[in-house]
């Protein structure tokens, strides 16, 4: 092997490894840039009114987004109540009951469903729930978000249940415990932490979703506590309306609301990750 070939190989090596390193720093740099900007802008626009007051009519100063925060809690809460049990159930089916062929079909469907754009889910639920019920509602929004959470929950639950050693199931069965009891009292408790992690990540995903809420929750300026009684606001919706509006007062509040939303999403994701790591 000649010296020049060796030189060329070394140069290629250095160049390509350098490119990869630069790429990684670029990817992380973009995040730090965006996150830093959102946090800085958000903190400087934050005040107590944001959490305690309702939105004021356009153009007036002051006001807050308390109703949006309450609305987000209600819609995401409904989504969790609907989506998590069904998702875990589907996960149990995949890991404990499904035969290889049907299992793969359901698994594949779940994976493909996670790729369906959330706005399409919004239109779907608009037709399915909003038109049939006759009005926009927190329930419709909760169902839309639950549909987004469902395939994610199913796949992550399956993954976590599969981590439970087969010997534990066999030990329970050997004691004469029935199969459903084994799943309920042995398999699920062992996988508990993983299931909670999956649920938290799905909630974090749902909390930041905006597109499906446009056609299900719609949003309004008032505090709404009813699940079925009409439009309800949510934090992402409020950010969207304020960000695209012409008033600088509202822009400030959009930044502050974004700060709160990002913080909530990150805290939930972080908790999920820490739970999983501390095993």
């Amino acid at each position, binding site marked *: 092997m000649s010296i020049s070939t060796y030189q060329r190989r070394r140069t290629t*090596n250095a160049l*390509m*490894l350098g*490119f*990869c390193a*630069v*790429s*990684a720093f*670029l*990817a*992380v740099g*973009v*995040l*730090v840039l*965006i996150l830093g900007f*959102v946090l800085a802008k958000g903190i400087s626009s934050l005040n107590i009114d944001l959490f305690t007051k309702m939105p004021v009519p356009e153009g007036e100063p002051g006001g807050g987004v308390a109703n949006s925060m309450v609305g987000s809690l209600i819609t995401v809460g409904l989504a969790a109540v609907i989506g998590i049990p069904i998702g875990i*159930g589907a996960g*149990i*089916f995949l890991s*404990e*009951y499904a035969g290889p062929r049907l299992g793969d079909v*359901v698994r*594949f*469907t779940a994976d*493909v*469903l996670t*790729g369906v*754009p*959330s*706005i399409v889910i919004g*239109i*779907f639920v*608009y*037709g*399915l729930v909003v038109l049939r019920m006759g009005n926009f509602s927190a329930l419709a929004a909760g169902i839309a978000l639950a549909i987004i959470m469902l395939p994610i929950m*199913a*796949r*992550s639950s399956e*993954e976590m249940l599969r981590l439970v050693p*087969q010997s534990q199931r*066999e030990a329970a069965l050997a004691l004469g415990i*029935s199969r*459903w009891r084994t*799943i309920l009292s042995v398999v699920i408790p062992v996988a508990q932490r993983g299931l909670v992690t*999956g649920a938290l990540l799905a909630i974090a995903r749902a909390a*930041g*979703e*905006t*597109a499906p809420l*446009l056609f299900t929750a719609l949003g309004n300026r008032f505090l709404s506590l009813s699940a079925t009684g009409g439009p309800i606001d949510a934090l*992402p919706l409020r950010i*969207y309306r304020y960000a*695209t509006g012409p008033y600088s007062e509202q822009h400030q509040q959009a930044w502050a609301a*974004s700060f709160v*939303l*990002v913080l909530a999403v*990150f805290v939930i*994701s972080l908790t*999920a990750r820490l739970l*999983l790591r501390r095993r």
Partner: protein
Amino acid sequence: MRRPWRSGNAGDAIARVIAVGLGLSLLALGGLLIYELVDESWQSITEFGLGFITGTTWDPVAREFGAAPAIYGTLVSSLIALILAVPVSLGAAIFLSEIAPPWLRNPFSFLVEMLAALPSVVLGLWGIYVLIPWVRDFLERSTLGHLSFIPLFSGPPFGLGMLAAGLILSIMILPIITAISRDVMLAVPTSQREAMVALGATKWEVISGAVLPYCRSGLVGAVILGLGRALGETMAVTMVIGRGYNITASLFRPASTAASAVASEFNEASYSLYISALVELALILLAITLLVNIVARLLVWRIARSPGLIRE
């Protein structure tokens, strides 16, 4: 772990029915989704037929609906995003799986996953107030603006438009492609790398000669999953693309994607044909993303079946 046990009592039978029902609910959901969208867009489908897809005029006032501009906008903005994001994502994934020392790998992986968790509407807010002015003043007025003899870079500097949409989409799909590619590369057996090292290969030769060929289909799958996400991404794009319905070569002009059209017009759609046309737009978007996702999943499944927890 396929059925090491036999069910014998009533409790087991009930539990089985419930679990199978919940599992099959996913299939039912998929079917219902398609049925409902077809049902709601039926008026538009029968009114326009195939002309809906090829029609280039989107004019609700004249009751004329052609989806071509929105489909064009969807494809072009996603293409820009891929061109910008793929090299960087693959580079970053190689860095995270093959090069970085552990003390750097973990925080970097964590940060990339956090970027994936950033709500799209927040990215859109950042897009409006940071990206758009930068695109307008830096890209469109000075750098790319000097290349206005190329049709791509001609047109007035609005900031809002196809270019901004492509840029923001590239930021959105970057962490997704990076995270999945990294998982796929980590699934390559160490023995493959050792074989190359034993032949005296440099680090890059190990990567290009052993790691990348071994997981090629998984990497293609990761890129296509990113594409699927870009095609259906709504909020951030709606906030920066500027809502225009022309098919032009210029990237500086306001445009629309299928998703952005539905998001910005659905609530103002005032008659049933208008609503139906928007639903058909969503149906087309669903068809495109289903196709893309099915291809991508098949490719990724050949390498690694488990979902990373952050997988979209």
